[in-house]
Structure formats: structure tokens, C-alpha cells
């Protein structure tokens, strides 16, 4: 292929992605007639519902990340250490959320945990929040698990574990002091993906009727003209900030040449 043709294709691609974005940003800035302004943003930020839903989702995202780390790091570690033959199976299970639509999962949740079930999680606000967090954790599982598992591949898990054991360390010490620090970069990138997923998630939050940012975006989109575009721009910036942070933490780490 000639140079010019490659450039043409690249340009076409850029146009395809960037033009709608530019349009979105441009429109979000044109609330005031005849000039660009941040009026739409000001309106959004002044909306108490925005602040409520936004902070609800941020808190949920952080809790999901903590839960995800507690679930995934020990699991991935244990599978690598003791059940290496089960790795493909576990990997397959962690990929299921990509195949099963969130709506299916959430209906399953509602059936399993409704007020007349053996574990009536949906009966209380706290229970519903918990359920939503589990749902979020599940959605982020494919990314979190892969990130951590890839991180574990860079160290000799078995030998390091034995070295620590011979020095008197128990499982908790091994996971907290050795495994976690050595997969920190992987955990952080998994965390940022999780954050981005939770901030934008609509289906689960809407069906469990929780005041999250995703349903709020949808609500605004249905009822306002300029504000949804300001919101979309904000959401877009959050996502890209997460991606940028992943790049950053991957680059800065002092023992990245970790021996084996």
C-alpha cells in the first residue's frame, strides 16, 4: 500500500471517531445563543441531582474496586499456585459477563434475592446497594481478573511463596506484603477500568432502582437539550482520564524489571 493511501485511511478513521466528539463538545458549549459558553456545564453542576448521583456512583465504584481486589487477587493467586490446571476454566468463567447481558443477570438477581426469597437483599436499601456492587464487580471481572493474572505472570509466584513461607510468613502476609505489591500496577489498571464501567453503567442501577449516574444521564438525555451533551462530555473525560492514569501507573514503577 502506498504512503498516501495509508494516510488517507488513517485520516478517515480519525474523522470517523473525532468528528462526532467535536460535534458533541461543540453543541454542549452552545447553550447561549450566538457564542460559546459553559452555561450547560454550569447548569449541570448546579443540579443537586447531578451531585447526588455522581457521588453515589463514585462511592459505589470505590467499593466495587475494593471488593474486586479482595476477590480477584487471592483467587488469581490461588489458582496460579494450587490449581494451575483450572486456569482455563476460571478464565472462561471470568469472561462470562462479556457474553451474558447485564439485563439477564439483573433479572436473575431480582428473582434470586427478592423480598420473599431465602436472602431478601432487595428488601432493604443497604441490601440493594450491596447487590448492585456485586453486579458491578461481576461486570468488571473480565478486566480485573485478566489484569491481575497477567501481573502475576511476571513473578515466580510459587517460588516467592515458598521463600516467604520458609521465612515464617502465613497466607495473609504473603498476599498483602508480596503478591499485592508485585501486581499493584495490574491492580490499578484493573481498578481504573472498573471505575469507568461503574460510572457509566445504566442497566443494573436502573432496574434495581438506585440513584446512580448512569440512569441520571439517561434521564437528562430524555428531558433536556444541551445538558446531556455537557454530561456526555464529562463522562467521556472521566473515562479518558482513567485510561490516561493506567498509562501513567504502568510507566512509573520502580521495580518493574522484577526478577523471577
Amino acid at each position, binding site marked *: 500500500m502506498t504512503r498516501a493511501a495509508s494516510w488517507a485511511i488513517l485520516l478517515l478513521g480519525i474523522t470517523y471517531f473525532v468528528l462526532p466528539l467535536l460535534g458533541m463538545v461543540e453543541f454542549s458549549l452552545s447553550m447561549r445563543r450566538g457564542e460559546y459558553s459553559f452555561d450547560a456545564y454550569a447548569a449541570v453542576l448546579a443540579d443537586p441531582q447531578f451531585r447526588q448521583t455522581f457521588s453515589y456512583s463514585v462511592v459505589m465504584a470505590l467499593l466495587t474496586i475494593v471488593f474486586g481486589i479482595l476477590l480477584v487477587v487471592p483467587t488469581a493467586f490461588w489458582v496460579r499456585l494450587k490449581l494451575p490446571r483450572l486456569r482455563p476454566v476460571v478464565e472462561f468463567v471470568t469472561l462470562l459477563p462479556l457474553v451474558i447481558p447485564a439485563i439477564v443477570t439483573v433479572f436473575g438477581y431480582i428473582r434470586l434475592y427478592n423480598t420473599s426469597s431465602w436472602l431478601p437483599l432487595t428488601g432493604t436499601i443497604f441490601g440493594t446497594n450491596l447487590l448492585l456492587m456485586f453486579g458491578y464487580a461481576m461486570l468488571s471481572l473480565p478486566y480485573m481478573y485478566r489484569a491481575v493474572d497477567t501481573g502475576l505472570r511476571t*513473578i*515466580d509466584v510459587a*517460588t*516467592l511463596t*515458598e*521463600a*516467604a*513461607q*520458609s*521465612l*515464617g*510468613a*502465613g497466607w495473609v*502476609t504473603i498476599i498483602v506484603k*508480596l503478591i499485592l*505489591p*508485585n501486581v499493584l500496577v495490574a491492580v490499578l489498571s484493573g481498578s481504573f477500568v472498573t471505575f469507568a464501567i461503574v460510572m457509566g453503567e445504566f442497566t443494573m442501577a436502573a432496574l434495581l432502582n438506585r440513584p446512580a449516574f448512569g440512569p441520571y444521564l439517561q434521564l437528562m438525555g430524555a428531558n433536556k437539550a444541551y445538558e446531556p451533551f455537557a454530561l456526555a462530555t464529562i463522562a467521556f473525560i472521566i473515562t479518558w482520564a482513567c485510561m490516561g492514569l493506567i498509562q501513567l501507573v504502568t510507566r512509573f514503577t*520502580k*521495580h518493574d*524489571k*522484577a*526478577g*523471577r
Partner: protein
Amino acid sequence: MSFLTISHLEKSFGVTRVVKDFNLDVEKGEFISLLGPSGCGKTTVLRMVAGFESPSAGNITIEGREVSSLKPNQRNIGMVFQAYALFPNLTVAQNVGFGLRVKGVPAREIAARVEEMLALIGLPELGDRYPFQLSGGQQQRVALARALAPKPQVLLLDEPLSALDAKVRVSLRNEIRAIQRELGITTIFVTHDQEEALSMSDRIVVMHQGVAEQVGSPFEIYNAPATRFVAGFVGTLNTLDAQVLDPATGRVKLGENELTLGRAVPPGEATLGLRPEMLRLGAHPGEAALTGTITELDFLGSVIRLRIDLGGQKLAVDLFNTTRQAPPKVGETVSLALNPADALVIGA
């Protein structure tokens, strides 16, 4: 009772018996090597002592206490691995102090002990480095310091020098032995390198297919190998088929040569073991003489290695290189002298 006792130790993986009736008594402060070819079960024995594998049968006691039921982190055993296994996220000082920190030793004591250990391994300046900033030899020294810092009862080393290049290997070998002597720590050292085992150990256990074939000092193992395997594995050995002419005096026929060993041998066929350095060129009074033809000559510097045909049987002979004597030539027929008492009669 010995400091460390291993009795009737067995290990099977599935249907394969990897360690068979392994017995060993180790005295306090002793340096023992497990020597054998790859796959003979050395690591498995060591891992059972450390607690990473549980024995299929048998007992391990340390200072009279049965340890088989203890988890690895309850055994107070120091371990050094072939792959160094330093914690990549911790500095050298943190690595060395890890065992003490796990035990809850106060920070100031840890710092003092770490300093002491780094001085012991000759790397007092490197406490703040990370493992990836060290050479292989330095990493293995740090691994040794890390294993020794919590004052373990027993030190286990699994081929700790195999990943290093030859020069470092020899100097670290001496260093490990010196540190072991200084601390008087009971040590089991696994290696497949006979030179390492011979030069470092108080006693050597030669292993073959999961069995301890012989336990003895380096001198005994080399000079009086108990089995054909030990004789062949440790050092270079010529094995020669001989016909016993007189069992009482040990008169045997070796190709076209005859010699008298001066001790009784079983009648029939015998296998003689001759080290290359047992033979000398020329006739010497009071020694047995063999005649053969030189078929090959390798000049190795301080040593000249000859291959000699003794009428059908091949024999390697090492001569010291001296400037006073011109080396023999290929094709020459030479006379070789041998002290018959040196010759090994190898059993099964």
C-alpha cells in the same frame, strides 16, 4: 540422637516412587550434600524437610521433635533456591529483614541484624538497592543472608550455584562454606555437581533413582565407592571387565595383562575400577604393570589425558605435564604402573 534425623522417608507422586527408604542422620553443624543426577529426587527430599511436600511415609525429626505435621512457616528452616527468589518489591535490607519482621521483632533489632548479615555476606553498602539492580552472585548472597537472618535451625540450599557463571560459582562456593562454618549451622546442600559436593561437604549422600546409594565423607565416596553407580558418577572412572584367576590372592586377567590385587575377590567375573590418576607411565618396582597402546592423546595443560587400548578394553590415563619429559605419542606401546591396592573392585 542426631540433630536432624530422616528415617524411612518415602515419596510417591501418583504411582511413581520418587524417594525410596531414605535414611540420614545429620549432626549439629554438619554440612551435608545430596549429590546425584537430575531427577533422582534430591529436591523432593529437601522439600519434605522444608515442609513443601508431605512424605508418603517416614519421619523427619529436628532436635528430637517430629516436624512432619508442621507447616513450612512453623519449621524455622532457612531455604535458598536456585532462582534466588528475592522479593522484587523489597529492597535488599527489607528482603533480609523479612523473616524477622514476620516474627514481630522490633524494628531496631531488625536493622542491627540486617546490618550484621549484610556485613557477613560482604555487601554492606547495598541495603537500599532493589534485587534487579544486583548481579546473580549478589542476589544469591542476599538470598543466603535472608535465609540466615532469623537464625534457622537448619539451612537448606537447592542447587544455589547452578544459575551462576563458573567463576562466581567457585568463589561463592567457598564463601558459603566459610559462612556455614562461622555460624556452625546445620546445612543440607543439593547439587548435581560432584566437584561442588566433594569440595564443600563434611559428608555426601549420593542419590540414584530415589535411593541413597552411599553416605560418606568426600574421601570415602571418591576412594571407596560402594556401588557401581557411585563409582561412575563421582569422578572419572575406568571400568574394566576382568577374569578372576585366583580368588584368594586376587589374581585377575585383564585383556592380555595379569595382575594381583593382593586381596580376596569373588570368583568368576569382576569389574575393576581404575581412576585415570592411579596409573603412571613406565615400570615401578613393587607395582603391577599393564601394557597397552596409546590411541588418543589430549593435552589439557597441567594434565595430559591418554586413551590406551589394553587389548580390547579402553583405559583413560592422566599424566602430569612436566617439562622434563617429552609426552608420549599416539601409536606407542607403553608400560603402565599401578598400585594394586588402589584398584576398586566394584560390586553390583
